[in-house]
């Protein structure tokens, strides 16, 4: 093996090493700048989704700001809390805004909070989880009017 070949191999190897590093950096770069706002494929999917029980109405989210949080199903059905700027805690504990008499609800189950424009629901590490439809939520999720959130056997929604 000649000296020249070995030198070329050495330089080639270093070049490949840096090529790898730079491609990793470029993937990270596109990861930072490449988070696209709502992409096209998501919209039709949302429209096509089944809307049982609400089929008469348009799927478009009702306009206006929610003013109350209402329990529509479960042991405490009918109760409601007015919405302010403060976060609202739901659960079986005494510090909850509405004390839910639901065996499947944790002491501090979920929190509704707003950033001034948008309401979010966040699970607080409950045992049985908080669900939007059939999906268990793991992070704060923005919710609008009429979106039903399920905690244990209780269903709550934001109303006008």
């Amino acid at each position, binding site marked *: *093996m000649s000296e020249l070949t*070995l*030198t070329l*191999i*050495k*330089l080639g*190897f*270093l070049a*490949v*090493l*840096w*090529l*790898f*590093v730079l*491609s*990793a950096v470029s*993937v*990270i770069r*596109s*990861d930072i700048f490449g*988070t*696209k*706002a*709502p*992409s096209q494929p*998501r919209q039709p*999917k*949302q429209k096509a*989704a*089944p*809307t*049982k*029980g*609400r089929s008469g109405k348009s799927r478009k*989210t009702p306009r206006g700001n929610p003013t109350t949080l209402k329990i529509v*199903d479960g042991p405490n059905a009918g109760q409601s809390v007015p919405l302010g700027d403060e976060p609202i805690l739901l659960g079986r504990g005494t510090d909850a805004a509405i004390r839910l008499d639901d065996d499947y609800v944790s002491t501090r189950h979920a929190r509704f909070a707003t*950033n001034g*424009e*948008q309401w979010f629901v966040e699970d607080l*590490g409950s*045992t049985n*989880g908080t*669900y*939007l*439809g*059939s*999906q*268990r*939520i*793991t*992070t*704060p*999720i*923005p*919710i*609008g009017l009429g*979106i*039903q959130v*399920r905690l244990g056997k209780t*269903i709550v929604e934001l109303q006008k």
Partner: protein
Amino acid sequence: MTTPVWVPRKRRGAELFLTFLAVFIGVAAYASVGLGAEGRIPADTYKLGGALIVVAIATHLIVRRVAPYADPVLLPLVIALNGLGLAMIYRLDIGRQQINPDRAAFANSQLVWTAVGIAAFAGILVAVRDHRRLQTLTYTFGAAAIGLLILPLIPGVGQTINGARIWVVLLGFSFQPGEAAKVCLAIFFAGYLVVKRDALALAGRRILGIDLPRGRDLGPILACWLISVGILVFQRDLGSSLLFFGLFVVMLYVATERPGWIVVGGLLFGAGAYFGYAAFGHVRVRFDAWLDPFGDPDRNGQVINGLFGLAHGGLLGQGLGQGSPQLTPFSFSDFIAASMGEELGLTGLMAILVIYGLIVERGLRIALTCRDAFGKLLAAGLAFSFALQVFVVVGGVTRLIPLTGLTTPFMAQGGSSVVMNWAIIGLLLRISDQTRRPAPEISSLDSNDETQVVRMS
């Protein structure tokens, strides 16, 4: 709706491409070691390359299946480091056996440990479907960490190798439980601080401009820290001691957002270092070797050899297989950074350090985007411990700071280190999969739908 919908990209294709590149780097390094040291490509390069590609594709498929939204660059970066480390260990086996044919070869066992590590990585991804489930086991992990740290001190099980009693020998295998304890402690600190951080940050007295928390809030964590550090002093493992202390201080800082903790931690560390210098002979030896290595060339031969190796490497290195890194004692574990610097030069060593930097950056990024406090703290702690470990090892080898015995993650020879680092990457990928996963679509409002079954274990 004014809140923009964030659509994360999976980038799994990019990950596959980078993975192939990383495997290529490993195999090319192996082949050029053979070319440089023995003048021919090792006969089993194709076999090894094929096996590595199969393993890499299998790992990629597992990630695609169980963590589809996980960070796309972590896995290739780690594979590249591991491949480079394996090639260098193989190269040092050749070199050391040229000096003395009786010396042990490590490359094969390291390959086996890498396979075990990848299995642990896959196992964690499959078994831990939601990292928050680990939070329920906070105290279990705390107890496990202490148990693991005590293990080497038990007579019959523990063994003293090279002056440090940090080894456990079971069924002919020796491993360092301290590496596993690091992960357990990170989980324990994260779980504990999530619950107590408000109390730690708010309740308490203010002394000398620093808010000190109440004793009962700090009690368990201080006890845990004292026990771990105490054990480490008895085991004479200063590197790990420094690592655990740094992890502890930084996680406290991240949890409470109080810079005072860094100050207190720095002062405590300074006091500890001074005490170590005054009380322990082996600490003083390390300090002297750092300040004036050439004052006692016989005793500081290892550090001096490492420095000569780095100088011999220069800008572009001697080329794989063509330097003489085998002359340095422990060139395959503690001094693998110097061995890399000799054969790949500053250019190659910088690339390796950038790879480490990118891994840490991804870890901190995961911590930033993570929306639950436990995941945030855990990711930050794991990423920081990784960064500190690399800094302590490379800084020690290049004589920036006194040399302490810690393993270079993924590169240094040592089974427990490789396995636990793969486990750390598994945890990080799991957290990043959770944070990058898009929010469920708010479309089907039929609450009578079958809900997702979640197994509580």
